């Protein structure tokens, strides 16, 4: 068998989703955003909703998310993506709208917007990428930074007395009656990537079925600002973040009463 027989469209088992653009990603090597972007492109393509989906990108590293997925996008001000998405979906109820937000964007400056959009049960999807740090501005403390974690603004580690506590906002979101599906995922292994894709698909389906807000937290790494190799960052995430940000479904109204909520045990 020659090489040209092997490199043949019939043998193709994995390819770039058509919705991913040819633009070179600006993300650092080892960053989780690239994987998550790909999953989103796959899900939107698989569901065939590219002509009615509008993404809302945040301020932060994913500010340029619109450069990479071939759909309509609006770029929101810092933290305001849920309000922008509300405006789109309320006046275009037949469209599919999602926000893509980081932890500084969603859990700090945009806390009011995310809580109220979820509490109103806006029919939209929230992709919440939580890497416990401000990436774009150079590694400052985020609301989700763990106690003891070193960042540019907590050089001796986050201290509860000085800096307050890390915020598990997804646990708060899960208690809101407007949310239907609230889950915490990760993309650090092939198995978790596949699981995360299923969660994103389920979230989009819930929005299409007008079940309220679906919220997918993806615990992620920022190896650059954590000052670790990508592999080491994944290990650090599993060891340190997962005990506090426990992966799993926090709420699934297709199984339970939408008002029900069970906190995950750590």
């Amino acid at each position, binding site marked *: 068998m020659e090489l040209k027989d092997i490199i043949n469209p019939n043998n193709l088992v994995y390819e770039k989703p058509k919705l991913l653009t040819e633009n070179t990603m600006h993300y650092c090597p080892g960053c989780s955003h690239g994987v998550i972007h790909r999953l989103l492109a796959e899900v939107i393509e698989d569901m065939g909703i590219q002509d009615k989906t509008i993404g809302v990108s945040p301020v932060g590293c994913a500010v340029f998310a619109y450069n990479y997925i*071939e759909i*309509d996008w609006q*770029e929101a001000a810092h933290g305001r993506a849920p309000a*922008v998405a*509300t*405006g789109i979906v*309320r006046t*275009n109820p037949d*469209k599919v709208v999602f926000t893509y937000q980081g932890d500084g964007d969603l859990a700090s400056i945009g806390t009011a917007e995310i809580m109220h959009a979820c509490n109103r049960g806006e029919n939209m999807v929230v992709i919440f990428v939580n890497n416990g740090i401000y990436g774009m501005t150079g590694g400052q403390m985020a609301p989700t930074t763990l106690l003891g974690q070193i960042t540019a603004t907590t050089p001796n580690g986050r201290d509860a007395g000085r800096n307050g506590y890390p915020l598990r906002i997804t646990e708060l979101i899960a208690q809101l009656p407007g949310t239907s599906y609230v889950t915490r995922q990760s993309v650090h292994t092939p198995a978790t990537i596949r699981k995360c894709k299923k969660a994103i698909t389920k979230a989009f389906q819930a929005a299409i079925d007008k079940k309220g807000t679906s919220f997918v937290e993806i615990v992620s790494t920022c190896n650059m600002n954590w000052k670790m190799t990508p592999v080491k960052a994944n290990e650090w995430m599993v060891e340190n973040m997962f005990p506090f940000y426990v992966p799993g479904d926090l709420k699934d109204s297709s199984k339970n009463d939408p008002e029900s909520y069970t906190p995950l045990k750590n």
Partner: protein
Amino acid sequence: MGELRLMKGNEVIAEAAIRCGCDGYFGYPITPQSEVMETLMDREPWNETGMVVLQAESEIASIHMVHGAAGSGKKVMTSSSSPGISLMAEGISYLAGAELPCLIVNVQRGGPGLGTIQPSQADYWQSTKGGGHGDYRLIVLAPSSVQEMNDFVELGFKLAFKYRNPAMILTDGVIGQMMEKVVLADYIPRLTDEEINEKYGSWVTNGRKHNRQRNIITSLEMDSVRMENNNLRLQEKYARMEEEDVLFEEIQCEDAEYLLVAFGSSSRICQKAVDQAREKGIKVGLLRPISLFPFPKKPIAVLAKQVKGMLVVEMNAGQMIEDVQLAAGCSIPVKHFGRMGGIIPSPGEVVEALEQKLIGG
């Protein structure tokens, strides 16, 4: 001929929005403009025209909801009063930067800070010269009657879509709260999604269609040359507004020896002051800027060659006077008379100020 009614200014804003085919209103309660959303909620336009009305969690959320809906080509608006407009400043800058059309109504109250719920005109600078960050302009219309509250809703939207720029109705607690007769506009149907795609398909984000490229709405541009070009394009647009859409009214200016310049509710008081001054034998005229941006520079420059002095009457410490001085040049005195704190000047006070500051001086 439209329907004749006796209505409050704020209620008319709501009624005019429904009738002009507005797709959505997003707002947050604040005195003295709460009747706008109350009237909309009472009218339930979602049953009648399909218009969306949503009470947001804050003014910040309201303006960004407007951003989202405007970005999908919808005709949407918000209303607030001074402190709420300050909160919206972020979103207004983003709307201007992303070149999105929308209507913002500011029913002004006195400041700074929490100030007073009484009427004021102290947001002139905020409306016409920024408020938010960056080089941008709003189209600013100043109604002086309940009828104009009605008329400027559709006019504001028309100009906003003409330029793809936010438009503001800058009014105050006097006109928002007072009742006058008003001829309501006839109903204009809301645009269908097909019509939106046909008219605005080159920029709207309502789901990319097979027959068009995807659209991206953003004010972000990291390349300095391209960002400067974006700024230059905005400036060209603002220059075009100054050429094509300046609105003003001249009252008894033909033989005037002195000129009052006032907008909105102050101009109503000045109309009476003109009559009182003329009874005393002083030949006074009134120039009322209707569009505060673009500002009527040319008529003021023309009148500066005719009159002996100008008195700018505002319910603030002296804001529009700077634009009047720039337009008038240095050949004649341009003075200011203003009241603050929610105090509305009387016509007699205006005549007295005219006599003291210009004629006697």
